[in-house]
């Protein structure tokens, strides 16, 4: 089984004046290719910090984060950016589509950044747009789309360049229940089809039911639960 993400004794702390605040404490975990992982935790539990560390946006104070066998701590900022470009996909709570690019162009963007926006890239975009049901809106700008439609575009954008890891931060947070479920179907379906590792940070109880593995983060400590077993409290 290919390990995509490996966290070893990862600690993250911030200085606040004289005192040091530890947000993550000696976290160990590894995620394999094709896994659908859910991370639960209260506000301020360190979920976003963990996502920042896994994506290389921030660096661990101690310990090691490895993505596709590359130790992030050894990489320059530029190299980490390129690693994100090549191996990571992102889905944001607020969709964060580029407002000045059309739906089609938004999905094409990661391929363009990698220099793969040729004919095969365009075919891939077309396939994904059909898969998310927005082929007929390809030329529309994001502000003409509903929230659910925008998030579907974001899912397609996150997967178009076949990243090893997709990070989804509250992907259903701004959506109603039905639309949220559609998005998760899409994400899970596409993820499994293409054997992508998907790490979803959420409050949504329904997501847990879809997960291959479930983690909670409390007081900076990461705990894995047997499927369907996280405490009620930690799901808030």
């Amino acid at each position: 089984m290919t390990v995509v993400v490996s966290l070893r004794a990862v600690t993250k702390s911030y200085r606040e004046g004289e005192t040091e605040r530890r947000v993550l404490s000696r976290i160990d975990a590894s995620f394999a290719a094709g896994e659908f992982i859910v991370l639960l935790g209260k506000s301020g539990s360190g979920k976003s910090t963990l996502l920042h560390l896994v994506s290389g946006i921030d660096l661990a104070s101690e310990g090691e984060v490895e993505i596709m066998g590359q130790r992030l701590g050894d990489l320059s900022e530029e190299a980490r950016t390129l690693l994100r470009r090549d191996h990571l996909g992102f889905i944001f709570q607020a969709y964060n589509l580029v407002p000045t690019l059309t739906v089609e162009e938004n999905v094409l963007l990661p391929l363009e950044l990698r220099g793969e926006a040729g004919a095969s890239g365009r075919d891939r975009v077309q396939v994904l747009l059909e898969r998310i049901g927005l082929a007929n809106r390809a030329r529309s700008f994001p502000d003409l789309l509903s929230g659910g439609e925008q998030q579907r575009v974001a899912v397609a954008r996150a997967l178009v360049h076949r990243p090893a890891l997709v990070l989804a931060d509250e992907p259903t947070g701004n959506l109603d229940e039905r639309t949220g479920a559609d998005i998760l179907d899409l994400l899970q379906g596409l993820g499994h089809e293409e054997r992508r590792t998907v790490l979803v940070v959420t409050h949504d109880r329904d997501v847990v039911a879809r997960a291959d593995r479930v983690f909670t983060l409390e007081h900076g400590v990461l705990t894995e639960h047997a499927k369907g077993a996280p405490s009620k409290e930690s799901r808030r």
Partner: protein
Amino acid sequence: MNRLLVRSSLRHLARHPLLTSLSVLGIAIGIAVVVSIDLANESARRAFALSAQGVTGRATDHVVGGPTGLDESIYVALRRDLGVAAAAPVVEGYVTTPREPGRALRVLGIDPFVEAPFRSYVAPGVTTDLRTFLTQPGAALMSTPTATRLGLVPGASLPIAVEGVKKEVVLVGRLDLPGELAARALEDLIVTDVATAQELLDQRGRLSRVDLIFADSLEGAKLRERVALACAGRCDVTSAASRALATAQMTRAFHLNLSALSLLALVVGMFLIYNTVTFSVVQRRPLLGTLRALGVTRGEIFALVAREALLLALPAMALGMALGILLAQELVRLVTRTINDLYFVVNVRTLDIDPLALAKAAALGLAATLLAALPPAREATRVPPSLTLRRSTSETALADRAGRLALMGMALVAAAVWTLSASARGLLFAYIGLASLVLGASFTVPWGTRLFARLARPVMGRLFGMLGKMAARGIVASLTRTSIALAALTVAVATTVGVDVMVHSFRATVVEWLTASLQSDVFVQPPSLVSGRGDGTLLPSVIARIRATEGVLAVNSVRNRRVRTARGDVGLHVPVIGTGQPSLHRFRAPRGGDARRLLAEGDVVAVSEPYAFHHALEVGSMVELATDRGPESFRVVGIYADYASDEGGILMARPTYERHFDDRGISALGLVAKPGVDLAALRDRVRERAGDEQALVVRANRELLDASLAIFDRTFAVTDVLRLLSVGVAFIGILSALSALALERSREFAVLRAIGLTPRKLFRLVTLQTSLMGLFAGLFSLPLGLAISYILVFIINRRSFGWTLELTLSPGVAIKALVVSLLAAVLAGIYPAFKMSRAGPAIALREE
């Protein structure tokens, strides 16, 4: 480059057409001003160079004499005794014609038999029937365009005036050379035989110079040496290039100051670019964060922002060049008029559209754009990759940085003070110091804005209630927008204040000088081509009649001549004072010596402040002048204030002059009226008695004062145009900043509308805010403007021209600064305020 990112940028600009076009317009005006001044300066320089080339031809050297020129015998000796083959006599001067008033024609008297190596266009047989040319009285050659313009056909005569005396020339042939440049070199040129020119210009037996061609070899150098030796004090050999250069140098400071002022609009334009690019960065921070998260590198983000700035710069450059060429058509007229008023005769008929000037301005515009875009582009690269929306980071960042920026600004101001005081003479250092001061002051604007807004808040609350408080707070809440707009307006208004104070101070000083100097009641002189010189000659018969005019108590006179020195030509003034004290304004001599007594002490002169400054002369220094007895040294006994010309002048007592010069002419008379005589009536009587023999300008004291001030005001007409344009660019800056604010704060205003604020009240809120911004800019601009005026009056003016001015301040300046900035801000705010107040609450809320 990433095509999608480029497309995204283009669409971003297209989605904000008002902001985009305002930025383009702002940069375009900045470029236009630089282009226009450059073209106007270049056209004047080129016109001068071409006309000089037309008369100098291929001469490498000139033999020149004193102010009355050379005796003809020197030419004869050169050819006969020294065997100089390539030598040509020249008689040269300016005349006017009633056919084209206000324009000077240059008369060039030559000997056609020796001309071929020098000016091939007048060689025998090339142009006309030689016998007619040599024998017909007043026979003259002109280029076809000049003759056509003056309505002349061969055989027709042209009435001319030489120092007011009417004469006539007859067109006997045409000079034509292929090529546009050659044709322009012959423009306004009247070529005659030497004898004809001597008669026309009243220089019988004299030559203006002898043109020579020395081979560029050892033999040539030896021959040159022999000629110089043979001159033996009666004449001098100068190279043609150095002579032309010396004349061109006269206007160097004038051109430089215009160029410096032209950069102002571009600097103000830079604030505009900075503002627009910062806006686009601030507005898209979340997007930039997302792009960073998706794997767009810092370098790519930097390139994205820089490219957007470039996208603004390219159309701006094209528009700026087109506007610049249009503006230059008008400016070249103003620049030429000033050169003719103050320096020398130059006719600029066509605007030279020099591709190099255009390229220079384009490069400058591009560099200014990129420089202005640099800080926001760097700021954009610092946006961290983000997974969430963060809106106000940049506002908080600037608010935090305002104090640090102000400290940096103060450091720049300190550096400016150091630069200004470190060098006593360098003009470039003065401008660097000035630029550093302006930049430093603009860095303190965000901090000042925060402070003023805090102070204004309670006052505004008391005056306008909650709306007033919100208006004051709104300025700080959007500090990135407001402070840059305020900085641009502050710089523009401060410069207006600075230049205004300088011009007022200058004018007041000149009025004081003129009042002290013009001690006669009625002034008489022949019309002069260069207004500031007055070196014509009054006919003795005319002088005699004027002296005998009824009502004249005493007659003062002055002889003005151009005299050659080792440092170039200079105006020599020789007054004869009939009554009262010699009118030397602010005469400085050791132990407060009296000017009249000191000047009577043998071979001595007094020099004007600019002349002393330019040539580092002090009391006791020696000045060598080319007199009619050869080069003679004169001791400087005093330095006097004189604002007639920036090259300065030398003053000599009449007895001293007559000992060293053969000339006995008088250039102007000052008549002192008997007590109780009506000056207007005296002036009319003088005109009547002078008759038609010589055209004269007869003016009463007050009229001469007014005429002198009119020249003064004309000199600053160009600066008025430039200042106006800078304020125009700043106005666009405010409009652009407020439009950006309208976009940014649409949600905030929608909330206000949703909770019941009427459109009218919202309009009032925005207008209150813009008024407050105008007031702040006005207040910021005052100290900066005064500092600028101090630098202009005491440093730049002194280093450019050598004048000592007194700083004159009036409360009107402060009021004007406040009114200009308030008006600019309020006017610029009307449209954005209207737009903000019309925005429906539902639309703005939905956008979020």
